[in-house]
């Protein structure tokens, strides 16, 4: 197999940018020292990176669609819809993602969930890591842009969940509200099945939120959005960032677009709990498109500039920002290092999913999914399994 050496680059490794080489073979990152001394061979191909930053490909844990398609609405041709987005987002440096389904009628889950299968990344698009189902077990008081008539309670514990989704096979993340009755047993059962539970669309107080974490929840869905504002006597879900009563530090998805989350709020979250930040787009069908009318699940929405709202209202309903811009804005908002901003969209989401040995890292043995960036953190090219799949220059 071809042995590739990428040289003259600044590699994101162990939380810092280091001048080093990246060696790739069989779609994996390999240890060049072993190859040099054991196999005594030279690389077949040498690629000059011109001093660019090389970072792990981005991972988007929450993306509802884009480029005109909506995963929750385009149910008849869902495979095509997912493939289109998978193909397009590689230009933004995204090499893996979790297609996200908003609260939907049961027939929608049953129709599309079996069709969105996990698959590795390739020249045809970013890897699909599993579906993020956001709802329907959320709090109607924080429904955001989710259709209220589709929101469900957990009457019969875990069997309600199985009944709603039909199959759990392709699900990787479930967003639910921890204040719902019997949510505790549901969280435990999901976690047992290696499904990540994220807390959101919720009015839970901190106690309920902590109970959710003790049952196994490890993530917060789009921090600050679809939850009560911070209150000092009961900080609610936001309080998890500083909680001492949860088994391990929480991760939180955050839409760092400056619209869903004010730059000052992004800074506060970052200062309070830097290690937990996970940049997500929460992008909708209008991602990559111009202003106009689009769909989000069962709802009509209107996009104007960088804002997407439910048609005829001022309710925000997902973003139109790509993950590369989120990373750039996050760095600008927080004044963090380039390495930190990049890991917030790669290593941290990989840790949430427990795949940090394979994805979100450039350590030896990891998948060779990576991106080249300039010093403004603009993605210049994207590589999956060691092959260039997108180039934003030339």
């Amino acid at each position, binding site marked *: 197999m071809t042995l590739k050496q990428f040289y003259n680059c600044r590699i994101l490794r162990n939380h810092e940018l280091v001048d080093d080489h990246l060696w790739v073979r069989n779609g994996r990152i390999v240890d060049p*020292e072993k190859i040099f*001394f054991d196999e*005594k061979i030279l690389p077949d191909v040498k690629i000059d990176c011109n001093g660019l930053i090389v970072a792990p490909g981005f991972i988007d844990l929450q993306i509802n669609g884009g480029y005109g398609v909506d995963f929750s609405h385009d149910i008849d041709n869902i495979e095509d819809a997912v493939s289109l987005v998978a193909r397009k987002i590689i230009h933004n440096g995204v090499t893996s993602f979790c297609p996200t389904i908003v609260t939907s009628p049961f027939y929608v889950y049953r129709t599309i969930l079996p069709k969105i299968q996990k698959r590795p990344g390739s020249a045809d698009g970013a890897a699909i890591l599993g579906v993020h189902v956001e709802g329907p077990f959320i709090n109607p008081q924080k429904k955001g842009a989710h259709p209220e008539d589709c929101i469900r309670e957990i009457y019969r514990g875990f069997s309600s969940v199985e009944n709603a989704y039909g199959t759990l096979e392709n699900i990787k993340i479930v967003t639910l509200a921890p204040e719902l009755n019997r949510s505790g047993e549901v969280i435990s059962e999901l976690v047992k099945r290696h499904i990540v539970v994220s807390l959101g669309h919720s009015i839970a107080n901190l106690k309920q939120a902590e109970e959710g974490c003790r049952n196994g929840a490890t993530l917060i869905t789009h921090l600050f959005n679809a939850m009560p504002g911070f209150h000092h006597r009961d900080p609610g879900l936001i309080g998890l960032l500083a909680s001492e009563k949860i088994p391990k530090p929480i991760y939180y998805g955050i839409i760092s677009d400056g619209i869903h989350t004010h730059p000052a709020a992004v800074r506060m979250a970052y200062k309070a709990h830097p290690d937990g930040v996970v940049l997500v787009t929460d992008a909708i069908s209008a991602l990559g498109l111009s202003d106009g009318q689009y769909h989000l699940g069962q709802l009509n929405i209107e996009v104007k500039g960088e804002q997407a709202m439910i048609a005829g209202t001022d309710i925000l309903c997902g973003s139109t920002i790509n993950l590369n811009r989120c990373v750039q804005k996050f760095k600008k908002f927080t004044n963090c290092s380039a390495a930190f901003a990049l890991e917030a969209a790669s290593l941290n989401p990989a840790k949430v999913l427990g795949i940090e040995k394979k994805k979100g890292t450039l350590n030896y043995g990891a998948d060779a999914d990576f991106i080249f960036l300039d010093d403004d953190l603009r993605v210049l090219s994207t590589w999956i399994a060691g092959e260039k799949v997108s180039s934003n220059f030339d």
Partner: protein
Amino acid sequence: MRLIIMNNPAEVAEWAAKYVMKRINDFKPRSNKYFVLGLPTGGTPLGMYKNLIEYVKAGKLSFKYVKTFNMDEYVNLERNHPESYHYYMWNNFFKHIDINPENVHILNGNAENLTIECQNYEKLIEEAGGVELFIGGIGPDGHIAFNEPGSSLVSRTRLKTLAQDTLEANARFFNNDMNKVPKQALTVGVGTVMDAREVLILITGASKAYALYKAIEEGVNHMWTVSAFQQHSNTIMVCDEDATLELKVKTVKYFKGLSKLHNQLIEEYVV
């Protein structure tokens, strides 16, 4: 013997690197005529390696037709341990240059049979046509490679048990745990280095001053193994000011007076 006295370690590194570059380029190595280079590890040669890497990157020097032989390696230390000389050479030099791994030789301290490993090493050097230029550093006790005081001055590549001083000095690299410090090493012999057609020894810092004095102004003595090179017909020692502190003023003045001549040794071709 030539003694070249530079102002500081950075100048020593640059002089040595320029000299190595000139020697390789003048040799005009090619596929049927390899330049054979002996290499040291340690803090002193690090600057020289950095300069050489820059020359390679600038296209002024290539290691494509260079074969290298390292001086020594610890016994029973994992190859990727940060203190192993494989690790040192890979990270500080080989990964940055265009050398073919087939042409790189470092003693394997994890070999099943260490005696055979050492015998083969001598054979490999011989098959390569002998070492053209052997670069070395020295310890405060005047040892070259792991030829500790008292080593035979005609010794060949072999297994050596390290002196207690060396073990204690190394402990800091192994969490101050004496049990983890390698007790033995494989090393080329003084005789192996003496066989090289040319020897270049780098000496910097006040801690090496007494050893340099022993090497230059005293007689040949196996308690200061580097002194053996007084009997080598083509040896250059490059040192900094600090390393001359134990030398006589007249010795320093004599060698400094030759600096113009010495600088001609690293003059680049004007093509």
